[in-house]
């Protein structure tokens, strides 16, 4: 049975704290893969990202995706936390931690979660430019749909 932790947060995310919260004293984990998605400043152009989300559905979709991953790969621990609200460059937007006895399960579960979050979790990014002028909604990328599609249809 995998221990699954998921959620959304309006406050800055703390990867080191999350990792420490589950692997302290554990001696049954062979591999831990973490993913941190960070807000980039786009060569200094960006002041912040504003992350809108669908409260209720966002939490439910993240949990659904994490459970799909935990059914598909033998992970022992899977943590997925997504930020909402105003995020400054350099701050995390999303954290994924996958632990397993073996490395490929941990890598694939983490990458699967990210590919599905991108296309399935109800979050939308709006850019706020440093010069106060150009702001706009980030467009979805075809590459993200293709990344999701390569995992096949989950049962």
């Amino acid at each position, binding site marked *: 049975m995998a221990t699954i932790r998921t959620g959304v947060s309006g406050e800055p995310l703390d990867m080191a704290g999350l990792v420490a919260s589950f692997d302290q004293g554990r001696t049954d984990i062979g591999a831990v893969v973490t993913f941190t*998605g960070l807000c980039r400043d786009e060569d200094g152009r960006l002041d912040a990202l504003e*992350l*809108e*989300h*669908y409260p*209720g*559905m*966002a939490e*439910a979709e993240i949990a659904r995706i994490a459970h799909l991953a935990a059914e598909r790969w033998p992970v022992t621990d899977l943590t997925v936390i*997504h930020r909402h609200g105003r995020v400054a460059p350099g701050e995390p*937007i*999303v954290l994924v931690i996958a632990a397993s006895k073996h490395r490929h399960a941990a890598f694939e579960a983490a990458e699967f979660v*990210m590919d599905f*979050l*991108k*296309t*399935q*979790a*109800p*979050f*939308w*990014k*709006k850019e706020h430019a440093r010069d106060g002028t150009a702001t706009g*909604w*980030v*467009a*979805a990328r075809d590459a*993200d749909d293709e990344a999701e599609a390569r995992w096949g249809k989950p049962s």
Partner: protein
Amino acid sequence: MKLLYFAWVRERIGLADETIERPAGVETVADLIGWLKARGDGYELALAEPEAIRVALDREHALHDASLDGVREVALFPPMTGG
């Protein structure tokens, strides 16, 4: 039936949410989008390209041909860009 709008759909319509009585003849998501488009310029602008609109029924992803029978909450939004 509660309607929720997100991102540029919300901005163009000018509302985050509203509650409507489902009109006669509105059976599917596509019917609802067609009916909403006639409600004003903001709706028309937001929903001009229905194929760009994603939908959730009671917080689960759904397609435009899905039935609205028994649905309490409909969300319309652009393709997601989280992660």
